[in-house]
């Protein structure tokens, strides 16, 4: 659906030298995927997200949207902006309207929908983001951190993007808030939206996404299925990332003569596999 080909991005830190933030990035986003992007701070994750969302133009390279290659970045960005919604880090800082309802309604109103359509849109995205309608008349600033973040996500969903990009959406949330948010993302994806999750949490990626794009120092290090990426300890370490805790346990067990499949990432699956392995050996 979206394709980046040989993308470079550089900015001038001062007048004499250029800093290259992205080097020769090639990637494809297919419809309906749940994709994770991981990498150390400064690896280029957010820059890639901003290019995909049509917020900044690359310095070099080709952007293809729905099979159409754009010769100028301006029209590519326009096409991307119609398709892609982005939730930035700490999105609750971007709430600005007097009520929750009006904040969510801002996007659809700007699209020129009539009042009834806007209303439908607001209710649908609020329910997708697990936001109760009784909060609609409250000021966003009276809400808890987790609620505020859901208002911000609902506001982006209300623009009905085909692709939803979230930059560290769970940072600063407590464990139950984090679990609820990830559940919402799974549901949004099931409804047909393509979801791209940028995260430092290897556990969150392992348990949710189908494919992971690893970035390091502005280059794509790896782009493969989740299980393949987490078995490649070397690449993860090169990117200053860690393997999930469950993977760590299974690795130690296998180094000590057990034989447990290494493509297991959830506690449930690990428990079953370990029980089975112990029974077999007895």
């Amino acid at each position: 659906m979206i394709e980046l080909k040989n993308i470079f991005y550089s900015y001038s830190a001062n007048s004499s030298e250029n800093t290259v933030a992205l080097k020769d990035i090639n990637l494809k986003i297919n419809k309906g995927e749940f994709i994770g992007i991981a990498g150390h701070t400064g690896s280029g994750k957010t820059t890639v997200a901003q290019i995909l969302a049509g917020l900044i133009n690359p310095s070099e390279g080709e952007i293809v949207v729905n099979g159409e290659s754009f010769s100028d970045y301006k029209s590519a960005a326009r096409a991307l902006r119609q398709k892609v919604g982005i939730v930035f880090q700490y999105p609750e800082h971007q709430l600005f309207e007097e009520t929750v309802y009006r904040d969510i309604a801002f996007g659809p109103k700007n699209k020129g929908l009539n009042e009834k359509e806007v209303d439908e849109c607001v209710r649908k995205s609020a329910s997708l983001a697990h936001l109760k309608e009784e909060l609609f008349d409250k000021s966003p600033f009276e809400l808890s951190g987790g609620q505020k973040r859901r208002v911000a996500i609902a506001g982006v969903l209300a623009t009905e993007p085909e692709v939803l990009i979230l930059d560290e959406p769970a940072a600063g949330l407590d464990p139950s808030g984090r679990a609820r948010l990830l559940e919402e993302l799974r549901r949004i994806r099931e409804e047909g939206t393509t979801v791209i999750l940028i995260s430092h949490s290897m556990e969150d990626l392992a348990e949710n996404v189908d494919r992971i794009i690893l970035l390091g120092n502005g280059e794509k290090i790896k782009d493969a299925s989740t299980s393949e990426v987490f078995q490649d300890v070397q690449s993860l370490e090169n990117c200053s990332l860690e393997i999930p805790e469950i993977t760590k346990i299974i690795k130690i067990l296998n180094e000590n003569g057990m034989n447990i499949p290494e493509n297991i990432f959830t506690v449930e699956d690990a428990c079953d596999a370990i029980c089975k392995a112990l029974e077999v050996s007895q």
Partner: protein
Amino acid sequence: MNIIEAKNLIFSYKSNTHEKVVLDNLNINIEKGSFTAIIGHNGSGKSTFAKHMNAILLPSGGSICVCKIDSKDEERLYELRKSAGMVFQNPDNQIVATIVEEDVAFGLENLCIEHEEMHKRVEEALKAVNMYKYRKRAPHLLSGGQKQRVAIAGVLAMQPECIILDEPTAMLDPKGRREVMDTILSLNKEKNITIVMITHYMDEAAKADRVIVLDKGKVILDDTPQNVFEKEEELLSLGLSVPHSTELAHRLRKSGIKIDRAILTPEDCAKEILKHKGNSYD
């Protein structure tokens, strides 16, 4: 000896319609040289309590003493803040100077410390957080973990008895988190600095000597990490979780695999599982 003594500590604020009690009669003593983690869901009162330890907020009722100084004693406010330094979530909001060593010296300059002594303290502080070789760098060119360690060095240069950290790793990548956690542990174990750390990461709390669980401004659990994380169901009902290794151990136990001791790390978990494999060869 207690570094921090909170007695019947109450903090509440009034909005136009009702009064909200954030800290509800807290009695907490923190012993010199200890490492305490405070966990709780968003809004449980953790950060409010942290701000009382540094006299950023003052009690509505009861009292809190830091190094025997009552936080309400305005004349000794600087003395109190020198004894209990604070590190916040976002490293970018805490760095003021354009060169690392100047940033670390900032607090000392305000205290009119002699030049030679200042030099010595800055050097020691930067060495303690493993950032000495970056002393001439510009802070904005550092990674998140490095910036956070510079912020810790700035507190350390004041030679505090106690350092309070409010979610110091929330915005860092896995490598940055590890660097900051290693720094905190070494300050506690090697320099005997009392640590109070607020965190949403259960695996970080598991590294403390003591875990305090707050809910609605009250202490719900206060024990060793082993004992606290044994109570998985209670923690889940409070919107918290346990480290993945602990969760796996609980599940294995429920499936009939004998695991005697409390499990906090992947290494421990693997070791206990391997004991069963050994048995099967008897």
